[in-house]
């Protein structure tokens, strides 16, 4: 029992749980372990996975961002509308990414500069930006004029869809940034002890603004890929994304109290979310039940986080 506890709450606990779940699901769920389903599964977690990369930084620095779902929808709209208006996909993409980054930057300035609680600030921008998405399209989906836009999501490289590649590259980049760069270490330091970091000469305010701006920018990328996959700009896309993303991060061992995060954990967290949904689809479980399951997974994740922290505290004494 003690040994089991140690494994489950330790550094690699999540990977163990994931491996077990994967084996069990492969054995008992028909059609799960097929190339087609695996690729589909990966494709289904692209949005969550990409946004989770930067959400990890947000949480690690003791912050919080609820506006990601709205930014994804809004930047998707911008990508489509700007491409249609200018006739250039590239301009559309740049516009979308810029819009995302601007919203994130505003979040960061309000939170870090004016010291407004992140929960409240992003709750506000979440609604404002969703409003922009609806206003700009009058509440309707906007179709894509240039079919080349679809290729972003449909094209494949070595048999694997481009968005999955993008997600993989993001995982690598942000894993590197977290562990091997000054930016990453400062992020963890701020979350671990903001006052100490400030007194050590880390510019905490600028760092936090950067983290939010980066979060917005990455949401822009996710929004573009999502729009391409659903072949239109949808103002109601990605509702509830923020909760899935935060669930995935917390499930991946990112501490809500800040200071603790690992890219591998987040990847596993994202995959667990994806597998849960994928399996429920394969087993023809009604969509309504999926909400319940998602909620339960989030609860378990938070409880695990709590256990892990108290285990760590006990170990220290």
């Amino acid at each position, binding site marked *: 029992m003690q040994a089991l506890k140690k494994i489950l709450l330790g550094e690699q606990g999540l990977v163990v749980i994931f491996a077990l779940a994967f084996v069990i699901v492969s054995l008992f769920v028909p059609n799960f372990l097929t190339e087609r389903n695996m690729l589909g599964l990966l494709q289904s977690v692209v949005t969550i996975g990409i946004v989770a990369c930067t959400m990890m930084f947000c949480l690690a620095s003791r912050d919080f961002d609820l506006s990601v779902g709205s930014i994804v929808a809004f930047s998707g709209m911008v990508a489509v509308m700007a491409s249609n208006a200018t006739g250039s996909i590239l301009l559309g993409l740049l516009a979308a990414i810029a819009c995302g980054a601007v919203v994130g930057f505003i979040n960061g300035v309000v939170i870090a500069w004016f010291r407004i609680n992140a929960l409240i600030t992003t709750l506000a921008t979440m609604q404002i930006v969703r409003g922009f998405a609806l206003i700009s399209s009058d509440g309707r989906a906007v179709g894509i004029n240039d079919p080349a836009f679809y290729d972003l999501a449909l094209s494949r490289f070595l048999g694997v869809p481009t968005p999955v590649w993008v997600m993989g590259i993001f995982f690598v980049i942000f894993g590197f940034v977290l562990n091997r760069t000054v930016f990453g270490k400062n992020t*963890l330091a701020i979350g671990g002890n903001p006052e100490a970091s400030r007194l050590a*000469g880390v510019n905490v305010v600028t760092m936090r603004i950067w983290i939010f701006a980066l979060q917005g920018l990455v949401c822009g990328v996710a929004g573009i890929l999502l729009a391409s996959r659903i072949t239109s700009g949808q103002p109601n896309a990605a509702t509830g994304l923020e909760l899935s993303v935060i669930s995935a991060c917390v499930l991946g061992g990112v501490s809500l109290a800040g200071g603790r995060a690992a890219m591998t954990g987040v990847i596993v967290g994202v995959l667990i979310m994806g597998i849960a949904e994928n399996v429920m689809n394969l087993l023809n479980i009604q969509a309504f039940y999926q909400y319940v399951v998602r909620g339960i997974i989030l609860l378990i994740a938070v409880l695990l986080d709590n256990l892990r922290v108290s285990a760590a505290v006990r170990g220290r004494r």
Partner: protein
Amino acid sequence: MADFLEFNGISKGYPGVQALSGVSFGVARGAVHGLMGENGAGKSTLIRLLSGDQQADQGEIRIDGKVQAYTSVRDAFDAGVIVIHQELQLVSELTVAENLWLGRFPATAGTLDRKRLLSEVGEKLRDFGIDVSPSAKIASLSIGERQMVEIAKAVMLDARVIALDEPTSSLSSKESEILFSLIARLKARGTVILYVSHRLDEIFRLCDSMTVLRDGKLAAHHPDISQITRDQVISEMVGREISNVWGYQARELGQVRLKVESLSGDRLAQPISFEVRAGEILGFFGLIGAGRSEMTRLLYGADVRRAGQVTIDGKTVPADSPPAAIRAGLVLCPEDRKHDGIVQGRSVEENISISARRLFSPLGLIRPKKEAELADRFIARLKIRTPSRQQDIVNLSGGNQQKVILGRWLAEEGVKVLVIDEPTRGIDVGAKSEIYALLYDLAATGMAIVVISSELPEVMGITDRIQVMCGGRVTREFQRADYDERTILAAAFPDATKGAA
């Protein structure tokens, strides 16, 4: 010779307080300079200005003749000024090496240079005889080791001026010795050290010169510390003579009030039994980690008791909850006042009535008049210095916060046993003797008092009897008549236990 570090006419005001007014003094190159003063005298403010965290309203700081106009902690670093704060400023989830580099990681194009990160730190730590691994996480280090890491940080930065704010407040005497030898090495390199402490022994042992602040003004400056006496410094600090800080008086002891039998918990090596009589002040002394605070928490029901019985006047105190202990008449003034004692952000009044209000609020309704009355009564009785009972408690000095917590328990009325952990940690001399006097008064009314302290002079000065703890067990007991600094200290060291057992 001109002084290396100079403060010229420094003034700093906060809303409602003039923290510093026109303070000027200098420190020579390679000197260890003591900075003393009661809480609220302006030491912390001066340190804050030096650290670059805040800026003076008037006056200038000069280093090596050059005026320092820095406006951030970062600028101060670059000028070679490092302040090591009382509450250690380390990030516990990062490693030793990462903490040492925090704020200026070695990197090319943002990518960490991991080799340099570890190797340079390892070298510096070895150079200074600091025995910690650069790749260890801070969370895994003891408080003493963390302090060493803080100092190593200053060394890493080739600091020209290092200010240490109460560096030994949480160190064991062995760890303090390591710190002192570090300071000697830094001094030999010509570093100026500004040493802030309440402990006169340390100041006299380490410092070449010293400055005393009082009420934000320069009270005295002594360029040569060998020319002055302790009593002189104390009277300069408080502005009046204090002949005997402890003021101990013998008391009549009554019946056994508190009886503890085989108290055991996860972090105690052996069950602990002892008795305290009415009117008696029993001291527990031990080094950090000796198990004193663990014992206290078990007694109060803050941690789970594995076995054992605690009785007050023959009545059993329930094992598992602080509220039950309070109802039984046992109260605790905790060690970490800021964290476990005061309710930050709430008024003095609320901090006093937080527990006792249940006595006059049977339906759970607050009775503002009663609470105000209660607060005013204890503010007057305990001489709590606060502008009003509505003042936020965080704005009070340490001594006054401790008085508020005492007031909180005295308001209970039925208190029979008072347990007070580190009664005067971070409290200045003047307020110290007031708190001791209060303890004697309470003991004289028949209360049984248990004092836990890591300051031997304090334990010896105010108690009737001492139990010495080491490694989670009680190693020896001393009666007041037999108090001897060396034997008590010997009983507190791990080696002595082995000899005895």
